[in-house]
């Protein structure tokens, strides 16, 4: 069982960049993107992230935008709905569509634009992290950023066993299908309920076996992780400069309206 996003995470050109810097970079950009009053800042963040992911990390643009189309799928309808149907105070453009009078308001247009730019910047930030950072490194970054151990250990185990259980699930589902388990709606329901019970029981069994295996390697209730993360000084400098500039732009554009 493989996810193509995962494969890029292990093979992209930025995989060796310090993961702590990546996480910090993404977190601060998400925060700046959300708190900015004008769409300019989120838009700059969006462009930077796309540049970093496609040009610097060398992720194929096609795969990247396939993932990007998912948030756009709801952001664009929401954008249209906001400018036409949410109402506002400053009328801007009015036109007739098949006898319906449609009114566009300046303030709602600004709001809609801000909303879409925030969606774009947030999504691009998370995709950057997802495409360039393997899960293993994210957990060690979380550890260095002092997230409680129990959360890291759980997320690590869950991540690993998603693939194992998913694999088992596909096999069981296939075996049900080959014995015509999903031919009618009623049979499908029955098969699905059997499948989910079984997967649950299997997962429990796996857990027990894993515990025995871990105890055989002297498990004492705490999973220690090997983590290594070296911060490159230039990268850090670039990060600080970028965030400083973003903060300046955010301050300068705080009262800016597009229309």
């Amino acid at each position, binding site marked *: *069982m493989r996810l193509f996003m995962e494969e890029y995470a292990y093979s992209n050109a930025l995989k060796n960049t310090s993961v702590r810097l990546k996480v910090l970079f993404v977190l601060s950009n998400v925060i700046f993107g959300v708190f900015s009053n004008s769409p300019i800042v989120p838009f700059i963040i969006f462009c930077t992230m796309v540049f970093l992911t496609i040009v610097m990390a060398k992720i194929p643009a096609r795969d990247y935008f396939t993932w990007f189309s998912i948030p756009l799928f709801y952001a664009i309808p929401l954008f249209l709905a906001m400018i036409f149907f949410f109402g506002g105070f400053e009328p801007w453009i009015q036109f007739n569509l098949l006898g319906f009078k449609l009114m566009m308001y300046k303030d709602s247009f600004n709001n809609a634009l801000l909303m879409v730019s925030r969606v774009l910047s947030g999504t691009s930030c998370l995709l950057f992290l997802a495409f360039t950072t393997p899960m293993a490194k994210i957990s060690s970054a979380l550890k260095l950023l002092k997230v409680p151990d129990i959360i890291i250990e759980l997320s690590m185990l869950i991540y*690993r066993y998603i693939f194992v259980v998913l694999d088992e699930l596909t096999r069981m589902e296939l075996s049900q299908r080959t014995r015509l388990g999903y031919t009618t709606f009623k049979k499908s329901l029955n098969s699905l309920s059997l499948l989910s019970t079984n997967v649950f029981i299997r997962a429990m069994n796996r857990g027990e*076996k894993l515990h025995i295996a871990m105890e055989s390697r*002297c498990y*004492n209730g705490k999973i*220690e992780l*090997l983590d290594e993360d070296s911060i490159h000084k230039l990268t850090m400098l670039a990060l600080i400069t970028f965030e400083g500039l973003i903060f300046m732009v955010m301050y300068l554009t705080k009262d800016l309206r597009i229309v």
Partner: protein
Amino acid sequence: MDIIKTEGLEYAYPDGTQALKGISIAIEKGSKVALVGNNGAGKSTLFLHFNGTLRPTRGMVIIEGKPIKYDSKSLINLRTKVGMVFQDPDDQIFAPTVKQDVAFGPLNLDLPRDEVDRRVKYALKSVGMEAYADKPPHFLSGGQKKRVAIAGVLAMEPEIIVMDEPTSALDPQGSLDIIEILDELNADGKTIIFSTHDIDLAAMWANSICVLNEGKIIKHGTPDQIFADHTMISETGLRLPTFVQTFRELKVRGISGGDSPLTMLNFVESVSKPFDVLKARCTIAGADVCAGENVGLIMKNGTLCTIRVDADLNAKTTAFGRVMHNAKAGEDIVVSEITGTITPKTGEINIVPIPRIIEGGSRAVDLETIRAVIAEHSPHKIGAMGTSAKVVVRKAGIQCDFEVDVIQSSILAALRGLNVMVFATGGMIERVIQKIESNNKHSGQEIKFSSLAIQASL
């Protein structure tokens, strides 16, 4: 000395199933022990007693002369001594990357970081997985996962490795690779205990076999002893190794002779014994030959002999024979019904020692020297035993003929008159020598061997 011993071990699962019914077994240090028996015979349950995971309801487990204690400190101590590799690697490998998984055990022992790093590196190298250190486990194939599982246990540096079905669910190459790895670990002094359903593997590879049935030990002995007892084999629902079955069929037809064979080498010996004077393997020098033609044999140093087709009575001709099958010039051929005197010439085996991973491995060897040694001796076949020897051969860009089951393949090739060069690591060298010596004593055909020391570049 017995490294593991159990005395009257009994165990009942909480649901009342009596899984073990008084098991007494003694396992010698440095041996390879196979546990065979049907599903549900109690093999896995017995294994879980060896590292203290299960506590016997009666009887005890004795490690190095001391009975196991079940307090947490003694258990940690025990588990660094007895490493357990489970059947399904997915039950064992849990970390997001290979390296983190292998480091799990050493980190639990609170070792310093550089020691952890050293052990992880050593363990991954020993199983040939160092290139996959940063990969997540679900990117690996079944055989690779198994190797990582072994590495995870090796990193604890145990003296005993217990493996539940090491070759189950692996492709043929994958199983051979695992056996090679285990063989190398065993040559380095580790005791290996494994369960298997592969009778041929147990017969060929184990020093002793222990037959388990319904929670009891039926018989424990050398492979020869076990497979000589045909009634026991059929009563416990096992089967004889393929070689033994084939041998019995050939024997009643008067083709095979000698003792019951457990390996390919013994088998070939048992088949070729009645013929060894009448048949010889030669290389054709001149034109093509057809089956049934009479030929003259000319002795030649180095190879066995050359054939002259339509032999006239040349002064050089020392013997005559009949060609067994069609062949083209330059090919090897079997000639039978030989009259005159010839002594079959065997090839030589040259052993080249390669440093172990701990001794610097492939980095401690100058590849140019390796190429020079090969150029000097120009062997017919080249073999590599042990992880670092394989790495050296691959690095030097040498095409290797034998990478698995090297000793046996080399002896078989030498018996056919070919010269073999074997690159071997550490304890494997002694194994090769032992095996050749015992074969020389056994078969009456002398294979010459020598150890070529090459200078380390460090």
